[in-house]
């Protein structure tokens, strides 16, 4: 399998601190309301303690990205060397099709620039031999960058509960499910 880098979200270690999401803002200064990475609490139907388990998601750099397919001006390309899906902002005409079409809501509309934009996997940082901003920032190493062509962590899944399942896209992301403590509650 070709090299395909992906985010590995270890929800066992994730403490929902939003450091990753803010690290992205810190790197790219998106305007108010535009978040490339966001941290979503897992509903109580999945993890019974409210806002105590989270999914941190940005772009999944899918194998068959919808954004790339639907873009009328070919403003997206998928890098051969690592599978990162790049949005070339200078080509974008702000039609909003990718924003509407991505089932994960990865592309966002930037009202100041009137264009779409999304997580770039910090490819410029990658090329400078650095980790993506969010991965570097994570205080518990819950968010990691992995290569799916040689990823074999035990007890991990591609579609954790709470993460929409779109097999045709084959999102490049893996999760480790969270744990629960033994509880002693007062009567």
């Amino acid at each position, binding site marked *: 399998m070709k090299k395909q880098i992906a985010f590995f979200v270890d929800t066992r*270690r994730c*403490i*929902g*601190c*939003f*450091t990753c*999401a*803010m*690290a992205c*803002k*810190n*790197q*790219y*200064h*998106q*305007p*108010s*309301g*535009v*978040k490339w990475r*966001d*941290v979503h609490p897992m509903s*109580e139907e999945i*993890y019974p*303690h*409210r*806002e*105590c*388990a989270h999914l941190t998601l940005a772009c999944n750099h899918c194998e068959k990205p919808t954004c790339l397919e639907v873009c009328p001006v070919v403003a997206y390309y998928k890098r051969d060397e690592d599978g990162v899906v790049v949005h*070339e*902002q*200078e080509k974008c005409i702000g039609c909003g099709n990718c924003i509407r079409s991505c089932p994960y809501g990865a592309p966002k*509309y930037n*009202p*100041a*620039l*009137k264009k779409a934009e999304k997580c*770039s996997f*910090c490819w*410029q*940082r990658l090329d*400078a031999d650095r980790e993506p*901003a969010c991965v*570097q*920032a*994570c*205080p*518990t*190493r819950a968010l990691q960058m992995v290569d799916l062509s040689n990823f074999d962590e035990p007890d991990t899944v591609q579609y954790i509960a709470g993460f929409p399942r779109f097999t045709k896209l084959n999102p490049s992301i893996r999760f480790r499910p*969270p744990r*629960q*403590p*033994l*509880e*002693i*509650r*007062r*009567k």
Partner: protein
Amino acid sequence: MPERNYDMVKKALNCPVTRRQVLKSLVAAGVLVAVPGGLMRAATSSDKINYDEIFYEGPYETFRNACPRNCYDTCSIVTYVKDGAVQFVEGAPESTFTDGGLCVKGNSYWNTTYSPDRVKYPMLQESRGSGNWKRISWDEALDRIAKKILEIKDKDGSLLGLALSKYSGNFGITNYGVEGMMSSLGYTTRFVGTPCWPAGIDAQNYDMGNMWCNDPEDFAKSKYIILWGVNPAWCSVHSMKYLFDAQDKGAKVLAIDPVFTQTSAKADEYWQVKTGEDGALALGMARHLLDKNMVDREFVNTHSVGFNEFEEYLKNEITVEWAAEKSGIPAAVIASTAEEFATAKPATIWIGYGLQRHVNGGVTVRSIDALVAMTGNVGKEGGGARYGHLQTWGFNYHALVQKQPKGSKGFSGTTGPKGEFAPELEETKFSDRTLNINKTARGLLEADNPPIRMLWVSCKNPVSQDFDLNLMKKAFKKPEMVVVVEKFFTQTAELADILLPVTTNLEEWTVNASYWHYWLGLNEQAVKPLYESKSNIEIAAALSQKMNELSPGSCTFPTEIDTKEWMIKEFNKGIYDLFGLKSWEDLKKGPHKAKLTSTAAWHDHKFATPSGKYEFLSELAAKHGHNALPKYKANRKPYAPLRLLTPHSKFNIHSQFQNLDWMHDFNPEPYVYVHPKTAADKGIAEGDRVLVFSKVGEVKVKAKLTDNVPRDALLMYEAWYNKNNFNVQNVVDDESSDMGKYKTGAPGVAIHDQFADVKKA
């Protein structure tokens, strides 16, 4: 398209730094003059934007900074600067504690520094609280201030009518220059003590002679970790990796907390203790260990005093069943856990600050200390009763220590004001007048002979953070002049007469230590102060210059200072030796860790108590009006049906960060968290607007239902939301905690011994 488009575009147009644009005007002028409408061209002029410009493009100039907030983690920061403007920040990779990453708050420092909401110039509010702000020059501001100070001196014959409200807004060591500035003017009134951790500090001092914790990086050596009333997943994110390491190695982590927190979710076991009954729980565990003969007699006999009396107390007055009844934790669980804790070698307890914000907080900490001590875990790597430390704070405090002008009059007799961070000052004929920082509103209203005529506020936001908001608002009407030094138009700034713009940590020279880990971080001036902001010591120097212009000799603070030199002046041989530094410049290469002979506090068992041993029985405590033993003390009697908890959120450090645009993106509004059954009883549904009310006041807020909160409690996270007058202090009064006066000058506050009720708004 979202409705907020227009606002967002407007903001982008007014933003002084649009993405990836070079602040040419800032470079040219040295200072950015933000004119509404902007000198910066709009990002929407697509014909001029070069989209080929890549986001991350080196090379950058890098600077060393440190986060000066009141936080365990005190991160070491690397600031990336290009063309005189901050581009982004990262955590320093050299510190194993910071480990290359900050937190959600630290990562918003660009937003703090370049926020359009920053106080840019000295401002005058014509009629306090009116919102009619007028920009004035530094000269005019200082002139007004200086004249007022001289007027007070004239009227009262002293400067006791000038009061300082300051605490932990900025822990960069040179910021103690604010206290220094006060001293350099004369003898003034100081609000002393700390709302934060005083009861526990006294407790640890009674037991061991000092507050001193293990190196938190040694958690991995522990076999059993109790996180008691602490939520590191929110309040010390960098500590979590050590807890995970310990778990990976097979250690058991137990979280004890009235609330099911994020930390609880990561623990192996969670106990929903009844709020304020942690002391009973600890004593129950201790009693069980006695029964099972699982006391470390070697430690107790060799390194402690008073255990016989403690043992007698436990045998006579404490049973496991009683502890179970009080705390809500089943007796069998208390028993088995006590045994596991005593068997694990080593075992440790992280004692949180929320735990001691009760009327019985101090004695609670003493009983937990006792549990750690009697199991022989004090002085062990991976063990210990961890609370905090000040081992790495031995600076010169050059900025702090200033002399009063000749002939100054003040309070006579007693020693000067205390503070847990600063050193004790020598006895003088006169001294400052001290008031309890935790009763600031009362102090402002009731102080007399002379009354408080002028209030200086820096590194604190009392209107947002201090207790009994209604009383505080009344109190702020009393002084004749209120001067606030601030970055933003906070709730305290709103009640100021004169507002002075202060620098952020990226714009000043200082040095930072932590009260939890053992790293030292340099804080360089990464960019020049924005707008007309000045650091606290620059303000002091400027004030001194104005004072001496009007009345020569009225202020001893140097009128010309080099802030970098003043940072350097904080270093001494003690610091150099402790950190293995040849010079402060070594810190330019990165933060340095103290050279510890052992990761354990009290590793030599040479305690700093009067007896030199661990004191289960402390005569000093008795002398100070407490029980000599950590005897159970009842919690505050409720005055309303539900307990009200107002702990800390992960999105802010008190009133800092939540007001930022970026933080609003991730946490837009406050809530009150209510147990679903309690809500059902009151007809409250998820998302309803409700009124949280008590005899102290009321708060209108949206409700979220969750059984993370116990059935008998309400929870609101204290924070300041921009353009939102949400303030939990409306329903929090200033009831004191039992301890704190010994080491910090005033007792603490029972912040979590508050009560309220809730109903649909």
